[in-house]
């Protein structure tokens, strides 16, 4: 790792991006600042940088994803990297050996950055132990989805000018959500007040120990909040086992204007996508241009991922800062 005067290496001393938990406010702030500059680049006529020319980025997805994979692909290409998408279908993943076998193959290919999504918690960490390249966790089981939390934070910061002191309600299936965990860690680290709102069966044991306030009543949980962050309810959780029905879930925990009335009048609505309209969020609310930041989240996603690629490849590039 390079050291010395470069503030990037000092502020972001990580080889991989595996989790938000454990990151300092300074490291998060650094990534968000860097991402801000990439938002500007993305909006300019010439969207390209050459920072990663000759570098290879592999998107290794063991789970289906359109938006995260596309977002990384776009980020890599805008920075001049060679981007390769590898999707490993469900059946061959069942045998876990595939994961380490794949790692060995990638090592032999001299990859610079690996973006990985996997259904097992800890999969990105396991790969990072076996690979020579930088690893970015694009979602590991129900553990973390750090780039989603970073893009959410960037969206909030650009809209409201800060993270510290805000009250954020994260609503829905907390138990099975890696997005929720990453956001809880990030927002808490940056000084926001975090609430989780969910049916009791979708609240994991000990969640309050992560520093959040726990609500099972949506209206109470939304009272006065600055941000309402909805989570996607996975198909397989919808009937019977965790909640009685979609119908009942939407009635008590679906975001409607009626429930939203409890929040701050200017409260921002967010969703990591893809949305289940009529399950966790009412269509009208989701499409409310004035209040919904859902489309903006997508734009921020590309910028955040460019910033991460920049930060993680600095040691490779001899720590040269961003070519502005």
């Amino acid at each position, binding site marked *: 790792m390079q050291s010395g005067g470069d503030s990037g290496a000092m502020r972001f001393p990580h080889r991989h991006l595996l989790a938000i*938990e454990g990151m300092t406010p300074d490291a998060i702030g650094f990534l968000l600042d860097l991402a801000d500059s990439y938002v500007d680049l993305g909006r300019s006529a010439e969207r390209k940088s050459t920072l990663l020319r000759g570098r290879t980025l592999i998107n290794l997805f063991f789970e289906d994803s359109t938006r995260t994979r596309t977002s990384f692909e776009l980020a890599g290409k805008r920075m001049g990297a060679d981007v390769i998408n590898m999707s490993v279908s469900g059946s061959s993943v069942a045998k*876990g*050996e595939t*994961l*380490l076998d794949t790692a060995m193959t990638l090592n032999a290919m001299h990859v610079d950055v690996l973006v990985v999504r*996997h259904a*097992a*918690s*800890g*999969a990105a*960490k*396991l790969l990072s132990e076996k690979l020579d390249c930088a690893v970015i966790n694009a979602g*590991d*089981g*129900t*553990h*973390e989805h750090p780039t989603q939390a970073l893009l959410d934070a960037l969206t909030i910061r650009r809209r409201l000018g800060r993270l510290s002191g805000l009250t954020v309600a994260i609503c829905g299936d907390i138990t099975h959500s*890696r997005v929720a*965990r990453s956001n809880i860690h990030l927002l808490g680290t940056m000084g926001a007040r975090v609430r989780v709102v969910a049916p009791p069966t979708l609240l*994991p*044991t*000990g*969640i309050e*120990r*992560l520093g959040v306030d726990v609500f099972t009543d949506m209206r109470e949980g939304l009272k006065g909040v600055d941000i309402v962050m909805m989570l996607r309810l996975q198909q397989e959780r919808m009937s019977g086992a965790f909640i009685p029905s979609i119908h009942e879930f939407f009635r008590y925990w679906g975001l409607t204007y009626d429930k939203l009335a409890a929040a701050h009048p200017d409260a921002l609505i967010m969703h990591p996508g893809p949305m289940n309209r009529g399950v966790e969020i009412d269509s009208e609310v989701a499409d409310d241009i004035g209040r919904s930041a859902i489309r903006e989240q997508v734009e921020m996603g590309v910028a955040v991922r460019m910033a991460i690629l920049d930060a993680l490849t600095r040691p490779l590039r001899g720590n040269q800062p961003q070519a502005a």
Partner: protein
Amino acid sequence: MARAVTRGGDSLALVNARLLDPASGLDAPGGLLVLDGRIADFGPAVFAAGTPPGIAVVDCDGHCLAPGLVDMRVRVGEPGEEHKENLASAALAAAAGGVTTLAALPDTDPPIDEPALVAFIARRAQEVGSVTVLPYATLTKRGAGKELAEIGMLREAGAVAFTDGARAIGDAQLMRRALSYAKAFGALIVQHPEEPSLAAGGAMNEGEFATRLGLPGIPALAEVIQVERDLRLLELTRGRLHFAHVSTEGAVAAIRAAKARGLAVTADTAPPYFDLNETAVGDYRTFAKLSPPLRTEADRLAIIAALADGTLDAVASDHNPQDQDTKRLPFTMASWGGIGLETLLAVTLNLVHNGALAMIEAVRLLTLAPAALLGQAEAGRLARGVPADLVLFDAERGWRVDADRLSSKSKNSPFDGRPVQGRVLRTIKAGRTVFQLAGRGPAD
């Protein structure tokens, strides 16, 4: 003695030892004489007139000489998983750990559910020779938890106790009938106490750590509920039941209360549950993925208290060899279990070093107590005429567990890298030295 003395066995004079015999409570300096593979005499004055001529003399240097350890919960890899362990490698590991008698779990491939398979295990073990292998049989046919196995005939064939191994008997009616039926044969039933539906899908102890790691949890209550239900069935049937590897404060409390009510219940635990807690999982360390899962610090302390007050009757290694193919995986996909034969004594001695147990009590938990549970009257004790199964250990000697240097075929020790205090110097099986620590230099 009803049994004929084995001729051709070895003879030894073990002098200058600290003799430990939990059966008589003996903890005193002295010597022990082995003739033809059996203990001929022992005590403070046994060599007062010198050692007999023509017999090899071992100077114990003041170290502890105890009955060979009796490990009541071991996976030997046979039949079906010989690539992870086999009887020969398990015997090596046992000898290195001071274990001279072990009970082999029956949920193998195929499961030990027929008299012929029990006989197979016994025969294979005899070929190995350096450790007595006592076969368990499954409590249910194929270990599938549906129909009772032939408990009477399996017992006649040599099965020492009945268990479905890693699988709990979840069906209450089946457990009731098993407890009831086994009474006719005085057969011991060993339960893996984990309510199956509450544990389903879990990968580690439920709680804050599991939530942070995004791993599905197994609540402590899964154990407590299974124990409490089984104790009710035990009360109803007036049978006899043993709980394996108890790991929770709640289960210990239930067993303590049941013993006070006079129920015929016993229980054991394993070193990970009094030496480690759930934080050992760390960053998805699959060697710390055990069944039952490592619990909280409060549970760990409760297990120690239960060993000290007799609520828990024995300590077993719960030796479960797994190879890289089953452990080098994402945590949820990795196999359960850790090896333990070679760390059983040292980790248990930690309880002596930190004052939780007297030395003689620690030795009892590892020898006499499990031998009694398995009906082995000649094992786990120092007595004239019993086979000279002995372990000589230096209780003070420190060493660091290095999984790569262990004898077991598999290296999945949850204690890898842990400094421990207490080292097996020599293991003697029927008078023959089956393990001797190489070199007597400074701590390695």
